[in-house]
């Protein structure tokens, strides 16, 4: 603790002035960030829920919401395969979430409770793959899936998405299980429970916050993914919503109104997560960050 305890002022700026500067800068930073974060989201909503003729009337874009219409959503559902894309996204996202989370729970438990040589290597491999570029992985996966005739399938994309999310979910569960005292399990064994039974009745309930975080993370990765889906899914009816919607801007019939409407729809699942599961989400950050 440099300089503390010597009672020195240490600066030519008087203390009360320093505190005032601090208070003002706190408010300024808070406001600036609030505006920086909110305005783009507001713009999306404003364009999505209003009629384009209203938003784009005259020269300047009109962004005050004074009339709400579902017109953009109707055009979206009538003229595009949005529903189909959403269904595809939901299928691969849910499959990948289940696969990634179960892998992580099993591996996390095993890595915590059993000792074996090469554990450090395993830890490094998991962490290294966590930092790996999805596009670099997607290229060989594409060639392999192509050779096996698996391109354009839910199965292939589920594997690809899980490959991206699993390193972190495994890491997260590995760390999480270490906070679960072994004594909890031992007391169940002493009372005659089998090891497998103990895992089911004691370990899993205690680990619930851990695997909810893992599930949120893998859901978010799969839902947000563009790269893997772009590479693995090549026919229009297999596109996920991110790939399908990314092509909207090139179409003449789809304007900004519909584009923002689809954006709003894509945001619904993450929004629900944020509202209901915020604390689990933050727990994920604390363990080592989300990508």
């Amino acid at each position, binding site marked *: 603790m*440099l300089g503390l*305890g010597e*009672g020195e*002022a240490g600066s030519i*700026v008087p*203390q009360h002035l320093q*505190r005032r500067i601090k208070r003002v800068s*706190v*408010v300024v*930073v*808070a406001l600036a*960030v*609030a505006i*920086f974060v*909110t305005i783009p*989201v507001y*713009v*999306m909503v404003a364009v999505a829920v209003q009629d384009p003729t209203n938003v784009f009337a005259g020269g300047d*874009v009109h962004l005050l919401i004074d009339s709400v219409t579902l017109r953009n959503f109707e055009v979206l559902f009538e003229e595009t395969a949005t529903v189909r894309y959403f269904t595809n996204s939901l299928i691969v996202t849910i499959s990948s979430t289940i696969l990634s989370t179960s*892998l992580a729970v*099993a591996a996390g*438990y*095993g890595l*915590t*409770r059993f000792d074996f040589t090469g554990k450090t290597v395993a*830890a490094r*491999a998991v*962490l290294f793959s966590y*930092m790996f*570029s999805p*596009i*670099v992985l997607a290229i060989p*996966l594409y060639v*392999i899936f192509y050779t096996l005739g698996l391109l354009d399938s839910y199965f292939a994309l589920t*594997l690809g998405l899980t490959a991206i999310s699993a390193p972190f979910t495994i890491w997260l569960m*590995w760390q999480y299980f*270490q906070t679960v005292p072994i004594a909890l399990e031992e007391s169940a064994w002493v009372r*005659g*429970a*089998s090891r*497998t039974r103990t895992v089911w*009745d*004691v370990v899993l309930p205690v680990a619930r916050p851990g695997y909810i975080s893992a599930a949120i993370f893998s859901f978010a990765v799969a839902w947000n993914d*563009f*790269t893997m889906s772009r590479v693995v899914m090549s026919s229009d009816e297999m596109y996920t919503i*991110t790939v399908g919607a*990314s092509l909207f*801007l090139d179409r003449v019939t789809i304007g*900004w109104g519909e*584009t923002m409407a689809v*954006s709003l729809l*894509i*945001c619904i699942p993450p929004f629900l997560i*944020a509202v209901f599961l*915020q604390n689990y989400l*933050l727990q994920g*950050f*604390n363990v*080592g*960050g989300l990508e």
Partner: protein
Amino acid sequence: MSTSTLRRPFADLDERRLLLWLTFLPLVVFFTLVWAIPILYALGMSLFEDPTTAPTFVGLGNYAAILTSGDFGLFLWNSVLYAVSTTVFSLIIGLALALVVNQEIRGGSILRTMMIFPYLLPTLVVIFIWQFLFDPNIGVINQWLVDYGVVSEPIAFFSTVEWAMPAVAITSVWKFGSFAFFILLARLQAIDPNLYERARVEGASPWQSFRDITVPHLRGAILIILLVRGIWMFNKFDIIYLSTGGGPLDATTTLPIRVYELAFSEVNFGAATALAGIMFFLLAGVAVVYFKVFEPEKEVAH
């Protein structure tokens, strides 16, 4: 937890072994299938010309061709510029806001919640929004810039050579800035408040408390953010591909974009996997530093 009536289906030793298999087998199988085999396969492919159609062994020829090609330097520079600028700005903004929210100001928890939103919006949505905001004809940003006389003509941010990279970087910082914020905020909240109280009683100014208490506690987190966030941004594909596609005139072509172009536009999987291999070795180099400095695996391998 009334488990006392349960019978053991296996003797303890066998059951231990069973659990060991149950927990490790999926991990080993999965990692072999989707990580080890593809990466080895890619490294193998990188040694061939036309590896997918008419493979001819060329050794390190693909690597040599990439490293000596005139534009490799540009793509590497773009990658580094993108990674460094987005990481540093995310860190600055995240740090400023983490310090603010940690003051427990009114509305701090609302700010914290708001910070999750850019992070949760899928990349595609973020790109749509910023393309709209930056649009030269209807974009609000250009309208403001023109109205307030900052520029005389609207700027086509994503399609102008000088502006494409800054525009992509701003978009990226908007989305990923909160990563640094949440990590730093967690660190700040772990600092014992008594330290500040003692410093205040002993007459330390806010600046001195910051320098002598806050900064040392954040140092490790800042290093991690710089390294890990830097690696991720270096690897980022979707945000650039969706906003500029690497253009205009390669102004935003980073190595991941180039890998994709080589594979799917030029259908040259030899070159694509060789470039992926170069990225792999660059990343491995940084990872070695990361493992040496932080020993992150020590956290779990007691």
